[in-house]
């Protein structure tokens, strides 16, 4: 970085000059899945290292890796030529042909050719025939990897002077003789010979990994693969001198690589994005249309007239949009949102551009820029020329309608979904490598399940020992190191959850399109980082469970309470809502329901909307790793004065009391304090995400910290800022997203506060989503005074519904007595048939439909249900198991007995052709059975069965039946914790509902257990965990012996001893030991694929440990932000 720009240029051209003796054109990266054994970035760096003049990347029928190599060159300023291309592999026996586009038109042909091959087959495959190439060869330079005279002649005919024949020297015994023959052959065919090394990896040390990939591909083991493995390790990047030595008999073939390179002028930078033309009916151009719609919307938003400040904002934004010609993009977003609104699909935009005044007026977002006090920087920076950022969240259940609308409007040639690169991570890495080494399935299972959350996603030595293997053995060491090496290798492409690429011209001339696994979906080969890096615009059409939940809830409020609310009209800024949240009473509330958030809520005690914005953003890897949480909390409580590092930063940090919390602020600091240009700041951010794999980010670190020191900032502050940017790298949380989310936090909290019945029913109906399972949602609703009634064939719909019921306010659990005046609930929740395990939606809806439509009377017997629905007795047994025949007076066993009797020959009337009855069929009883007196089911067994078939019990908690035994052992009820002073020892027990071990928490396990009285939070430190591992992982019901800790009303028990009492449950009923009350956030049952390698090192490590000792749950959210789409936080998150 020390060179001036001029120095660098001369330096570079000189280097290129001496290097320009050989370029490697046959290079496969690991995007040639299970063949290439190096990342594109590694290949680029190594190419420079060995002194190649350039590199052409050609993966098998794919260009999925070319952008990464392109970026490697661009970001690191690598002195070599780079040519993107593809290796065409044919289905008709034609030898492989490398294709390199000469120019933009050639690129279009290549991508169309690949698209043709992709769409011909199902997902992941590409079927090409020679004919296809002949029809698309325009603008392509071709290298035949081998081939007879007739093939070369045909190629030469359609692409004169653009065909070459490849020659390689790969140490196969007769290389020189072969080379002489090839020379003859090429001369006869009239095509030049060109040197290639058919590269599969950047360095010969990758041979073991390449062999393992072969085993995975061929589904065999390393010991059995034999000749399927490569005979030697020669297919790596070799220096020009070496290539010239190998080809001393044909130096012209080496020189031909330069000649070819000179023909190729195409660069990926040419794929400039073109916005689609939007319908501008009645307007001169898109800008006019946008202005019109904006002011139309503004008139709606401000019926009293647009305030001056807002008008000025709008003017300014519209002017900027005009200047950058982004109007069509805004119109596209507007159109999609309008479509959703016309179909009554709830949606909300987020992202910096989404929270502009224009978008507020267009109705893209409900976040009033005024209310959120947003936008310390304007929403688009003209100098960055980055495409505007708008993600739109839709109800997750109805997003497909929106997707199909987009396909329908733009056509498949112009719209496609971005790809997601599915990579080998932690578990899948050890699984595949283990298989290749012939480990048995259960050993692999044991090894891979030992990977929990973080720890770099690798198997620890202890885990190996525990499976009975020796971690020091040569073989095990190889397995572990190869699993580490394959970590991060792309495995296949999948469709992104909702990133849409829309273009004006043909999309397939920009990127190859392929079929997705889902019907009716097509996706492009590049992921969102690739697209963004090339400046290709995408619109994120995401599904959000909470929006489904909110729509259902608003509909229920309308139906049962006669009040029609929208997201915009929910009563704003009600103190009752903030009071509730400050008590950490947030189960089910969007974004703030995790254990970490629940710990933070009482500390932060949000009082207004902007506090919620902060709440959403603060429990994130960025602020936590940057050690920003504590200073903020101290300043907020007035324990520390609010100071600013400098006057310049006061403007940036004033809203967050001088502590940077948002991604925008971190970037702004780099610009304001360290003198980065905006585009440098952006590159810094991207470097964190994209360039972990290869190079270091050390240069950025130096530049930033040095820059800040020069400008007079303290080193410690500078380092923390940099660490925060590191944390933001992949999971940064911008203020603009936090604001959109905060709106949903408020809306859901408002519903929970005012109408807990509605909220619970809507949550249940929107499952699966969020952190909790049905059992926890129902428990919470009941604690808020809501009566919950069991599912029943005569009362339930498929979804949970509301029935007139008692006033909830009078039935509150003591925990929530403060809410007596806030709750408006006057209905009970009737659980829907959807809660019954194993009942299909089709069958469930049939029961409801036949009950209400056909005869419109309630079912009067099991036979009646059976005859009217025609469901198989098996289905009715499921209903009986779930005890859904209560309204017929049938207990669980009786119902089962009755259901078992169905389906005998002659029972149904149409089985009796001889005695067809024309009477009232449903009421007719075929034969009178003797009565059978079944033993009544003990209540404990009923509860166990409720859990087994309904996931929850409304009767009692299993712990209740164990209480006598628990008392004998001196085990206290969980609600006693609130009366035990902090620091005392106690012994509690409960059904395990959740276990989390965030990677960043150094192996601390957070367990949540519940008994009949309350939920308790347990912390298990790593030493204790190792000692009691089988219990932590295996027990369904545990006793915990430990020390009580209390802070800000949040209570934990720090465990030092655990005991498995699962066998107590088995005493209640046969399958008692099998039940579980696990929440959705449990990581043992529902492992999170490791998304992010832990990058904790050095001093930060210690600070983090200290912080976590105080607020252990924070660590939870370091990983939580990486979880599934329902809580996908930010545009940078890789959502699988």
């Amino acid at each position, binding site marked *: 970085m020390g060179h001036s720009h001029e120095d660098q240029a001369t330096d570079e051209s000189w280097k290129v000059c001496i290097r320009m003796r050989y370029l490697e054109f046959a290079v496969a990266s690991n995007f040639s899945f299970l063949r290439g054994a190096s990342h594109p970035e590694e290949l680029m760096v190594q190419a420079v290292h060995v002194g190649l003049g350039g590199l052409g990347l050609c993966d098998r029928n794919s260009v999925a890796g070319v952008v990464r190599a392109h970026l490697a060159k661009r970001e690191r300023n690598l002195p070599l030529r780079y040519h993107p291309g593809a290796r065409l592999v044919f289905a008709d026996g034609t030898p492989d042909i490398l294709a390199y586009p000469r120019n933009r038109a050639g690129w279009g042909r290549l991508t169309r050719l690949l698209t043709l091959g992709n769409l011909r087959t199902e997902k992941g495959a590409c079927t090409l025939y020679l004919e296809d190439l002949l029809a698309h060869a325009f603008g392509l330079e071709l290298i035949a990897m081998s081939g007879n005279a007739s093939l070369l002649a045909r190629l030469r005919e359609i692409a004169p002077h653009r065909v070459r024949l490849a020659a390689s020297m790969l*140490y*196969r*015994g*007769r290389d020189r*003789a*072969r080379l002489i023959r090839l020379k003859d052959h090429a001369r006869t065919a009239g095509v030049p010979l060109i040197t290639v090394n058919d590269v599969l990896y950047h360095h*010969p040390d990758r*041979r*073991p990994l390449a*062999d393992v990939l072969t085993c995975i591909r061929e589904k065999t083991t*390393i*010991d*059995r*693969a*034999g*000749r*399927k*493995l*490569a*005979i*030697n*390790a*020669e297919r790596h990047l070799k220096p020009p001198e070496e290539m010239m030595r190998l080809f001393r008999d044909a130096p012209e073939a080496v020189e031909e690589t330069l000649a070819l390179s000179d023909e190729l002028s195409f660069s990926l930078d040419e794929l400039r994005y073109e916005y689609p033309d939007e319908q501008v009916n009645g307007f001169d151009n898109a800008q006019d249309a946008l202005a019109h719609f904006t002011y139309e919307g503004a008139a709606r938003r401000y019926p009293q007239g647009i305030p001056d400040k807002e008008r000025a904002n709008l003017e300014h934004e519209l002017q900027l949009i005009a200047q950058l010609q982004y109007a069509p993009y805004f119109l596209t977003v507007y159109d999609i949102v309008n479509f959703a609104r016309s179909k009554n699909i709830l949606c909300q935009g987020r992202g910096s551009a989404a929270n502009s005044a224009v978008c507020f007026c267009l109705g893209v977002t409900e976040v009033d820029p005024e209310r959120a006090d947003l936008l310390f920087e304007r929403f688009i920076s003209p100098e960055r020329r980055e495409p505007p950022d708008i993600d739109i969240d839709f109800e997750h259940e109805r997003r497909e309608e929106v997707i199909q609308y987009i396909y329908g409007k733009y056509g498949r040639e112009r719209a496609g979904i971005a790809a997601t690169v599915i990579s080998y991570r932690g578990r899948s890495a050890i699984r595949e490598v283990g298989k290749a*080494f012939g480990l*048995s*399935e*259960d*050993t692999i*299972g*044991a090894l891979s399940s030992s990977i929990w959350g973080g720890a770099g996603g690798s198997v620890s030595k202890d885990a190996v*020992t*525990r*499976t*009975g293997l020796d971690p020091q053995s*040569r*073989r095990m060491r*190889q397995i572990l190191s190869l699993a580490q090496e394959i970590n991060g290798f792309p495995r296949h492409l999948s469709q992104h959850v909702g990133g849409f690429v829309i273009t004006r011209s043909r999309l397939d001339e920009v990127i190859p399109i392929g079929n997705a696994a889902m019907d009716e979906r097509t996706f492009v080969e590049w992921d969102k980082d690739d697209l963004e890096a090339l400046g290709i615009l995408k619109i994120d059409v995401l599904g959000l469970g909470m929006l489904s939940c909110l729509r259902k809830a608003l509909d229920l409020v309308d139906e049962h309470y006669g009040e029609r609310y929208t997201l915009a009209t929910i009563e704003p800024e009600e103190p009752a809502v903030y009071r509730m949240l400050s008590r950490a009473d947030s189960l089910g509330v969007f974004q703030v329901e995790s254990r970490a958030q629940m710990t933070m809520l009482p500390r932060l005690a949000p009082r207004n909307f902007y506090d919620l914005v902060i709440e959403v953003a603060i429990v994130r890897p960025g602020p936590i790793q940057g050690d920003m949480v504590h200073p903020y909390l101290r300043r907020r409580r007035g324990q520390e004065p609010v100071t600013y590092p400098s006057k310049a930063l006061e403007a940036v940090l004033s809203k967050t009391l001088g502590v940077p919390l948002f991604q925008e602020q971190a970037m702004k600091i780099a610009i304001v304090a360290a003198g980065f240009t905006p585009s440098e700041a952006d590159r810094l951010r991207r470097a964190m995400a994209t360039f972990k794999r290869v190079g270091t980010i050390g240069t950025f670190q130096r530049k930033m910290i040095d820059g800040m020191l020069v400008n007079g900032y303290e080193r410690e502050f500078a380092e923390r800022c940099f660490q925060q940017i590191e944390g933001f790298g992949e999971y940064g949380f911008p203020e603009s997203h936090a604001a959109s989310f905060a709106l949903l936090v408020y809306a859901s909290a408002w519903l929970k506060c005012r109408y807990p019945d509605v909220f619970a029913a809507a949550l249940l109906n929107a499952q699966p989503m969020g952190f909790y399972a049905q059992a926890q949602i129902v428990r919470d609703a009941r604690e808020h005074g809501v009566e919950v009634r069991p599912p029943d064939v005569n009362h339930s719909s498929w979804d949970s519904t509301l029935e007139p019921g008692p006033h909830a306010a009078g039935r509150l659990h003591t925990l929530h007595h403060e809410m007596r005046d806030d709750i408006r609930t006057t209905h009970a929740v009737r659980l829907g048939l959807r809660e019954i395990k194993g009942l299909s939606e089709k069958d469930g809806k049939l029961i409801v439909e036949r009950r209400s439509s056909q005869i419109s009377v309630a079912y009067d017997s099991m036979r009646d249900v059976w005859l009217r629905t025609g469901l198989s007795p098996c289905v009715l047994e499921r209903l009986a*198991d779930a005890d859904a025949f209560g309204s017929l007076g049938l207990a669980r*066993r009786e119902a*089962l*007995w009755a259901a*078992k*009797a169905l389906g*005998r020959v002659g029972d149904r009337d149409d089985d009796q052709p001889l005695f067809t009855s024309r009477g009232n069929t449903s009421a007719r009883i075929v034969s009178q*059975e*003797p009565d*059978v007196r*079944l*033993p*009544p*089911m003990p209540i404990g067994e009923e509860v166990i069965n409720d859990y087994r078939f309904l996931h929850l019990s409304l009767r009692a908690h299993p712990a209740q039946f164990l209480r006598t035994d628990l008392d004998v052992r001196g085990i206290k009820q969980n609600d006693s914790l609130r009366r035990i002073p902090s620091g005392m020892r106690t012994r509690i027990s409960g059904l395990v509902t959740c276990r989390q071990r965030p990677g960043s928490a150094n192996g601390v396990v957070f367990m949540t257990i519940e008994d009949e009285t309350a939920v308790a939070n347990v912390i298990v430190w790593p030493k204790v965990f190792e000692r009691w*591992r*089988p219990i932590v992982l*295996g027990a369904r019901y545990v006793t915990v012996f430990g020390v009580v800790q209390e802070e800000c009303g949040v209570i934990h028990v720090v465990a030092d001893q655990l005991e498995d009492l699962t066998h107590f449950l088995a005493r209640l009923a*046969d399958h008692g030991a099998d039940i579980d009350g696990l929440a959705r956030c449990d990581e043992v049952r529902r492992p999170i694929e490791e998304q992010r390698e832990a990058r904790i090192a050095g001093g930060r490590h210690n600070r983090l440990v200290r912080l976590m000792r105080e607020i252990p749950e924070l660590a939870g959210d370091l990983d939580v932000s990486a979880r599934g789409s329902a809580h996908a936080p930010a545009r940078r998150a890789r959502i699988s």
Partner: protein
Amino acid sequence: MLSLWLRRLSTDRIARSRNSSAPLVVTGRRGNAEIFVAVDDAAERLGLSPGIALAQARAMHPGIDTMPEDAEADATLLESVADWCLRYTPLVACDAPDGLLLDISGCAHLYGGERELVADLSGRLENAGFGYSLAVAGTIGAAWAAAHYGKPASHACGEERAILESLPLSALRLQTVTVAGLARVGLKQIGDIIDLPRAPLTARFGSDVLRQLDRALGHEHEPLNPRLPVAPYVAEQRFAEPIAREEDVLAITRRLARRLQFALERRGDGARRIELALFRTDGVVRRIATGTSRPLRDPDDIRELFVERLAALADAFDPGFGFDMARLSVVVAEPCPPEQIGIGGSEDASKLCRFVDRLSARLGPRRVHRLVAQDSHIPELAEAVLPAQAVNGDAGWAGFRQYRKETKLPPRPLRLLARPELIEAVAEVPDGPPLRFRWRRALHEVIAAEGPERIEGAWWSEHGGPARDYFRVEDKSGLRFWLFRSGLYRDLAQGAGAPTWFLHGTFA
């Protein structure tokens, strides 16, 4: 009826041949998982039981001994116990996998009564080191239930109801689904269903439930299936006049083989091991056995084998006063596809097989070998030496040749040296062929060379070795050699030793 349950059959079998007293479990593969199929008493005391996954249990108890299951050995052991039980009654039935049923009615008095018989049996089982549980009752069902569900004792006829009432329904030997279904409606013990109306029960759970109940209660008869001897392929001939000449023995062998041929053909089997038993008039039995390299049933082929065997025995073939009976048995049979006649290839193959069989019969099967192609790049691992009779078909060389041809790799010598021999060579750096080399003290000047063919070592194996560059070279006198440089100059940087040269074979 006496039901005997050898509850630790597998572990007892293994315990007989081991010294350790560490907890022992037997594991087997079920689906994709390795689970416990049997545990011994010590393991049970640790809380282990069949059905637990091996990996899971290892995590908790690293010290346990595990053995793979061997169902065949268990069955054999059970059979032998069954045979041994013939001392009590001729009616012994195997109650697979780990029990026996003895019909002792009318036999007990020989031991002085049921009690005494049971005492005798128990004593012997204990001495033999078996864990067991047994019960006597009027019906098979009741005895079985009592033996397996913890009322091991002797019960008089007619007490079945009392025995059964408090036992779980699974004691009726019902399918597990049925038992589970009954449990779900609250019917868990046999007593729960004894007095229930029969029709509704049958309607819901099938007729099996009540049939098993009736059998156990003695309302319905349950037949016992005593063990039958396994029918092997056996043909025998008695002679009025004893025979003694070798020709006669061979002739009779052929005749017996002809009879076996029909039986074998009917079942589509062929013989892999045949035994000829010659019964001498003085009671001595001579047994001559021979193996075959492929399933065989042609009488002439079989005769030929015995020609060689008898020739090899020569002296030991001592007819004495002659044989009065001959028995030819197929000891091991294997499915043998119907033979096609008249296609040259298969005839050649069968000629080779015949040749191998004859050589093996004369020289001994361990002395006749074939080279079999193996799937490896590394030359000495690419072939294996196996007893010729164990090799079927073309020994894999077709695939080898196909591979070399497709990948255009140069030919290799027909035979390799037993192990590569170190030579001194002068060669071009880094990857040139040797210019001259000294092998077994003779100096060879290289005039022509082809190569290198670079073969990397097996990195995953302990004995992988370094990479090799193979060359085909010809010296001045026209001798052609296959030699290689072991180790690459490229690896010198990583601390490898300097390359050395080896000679690995010669071309004819």
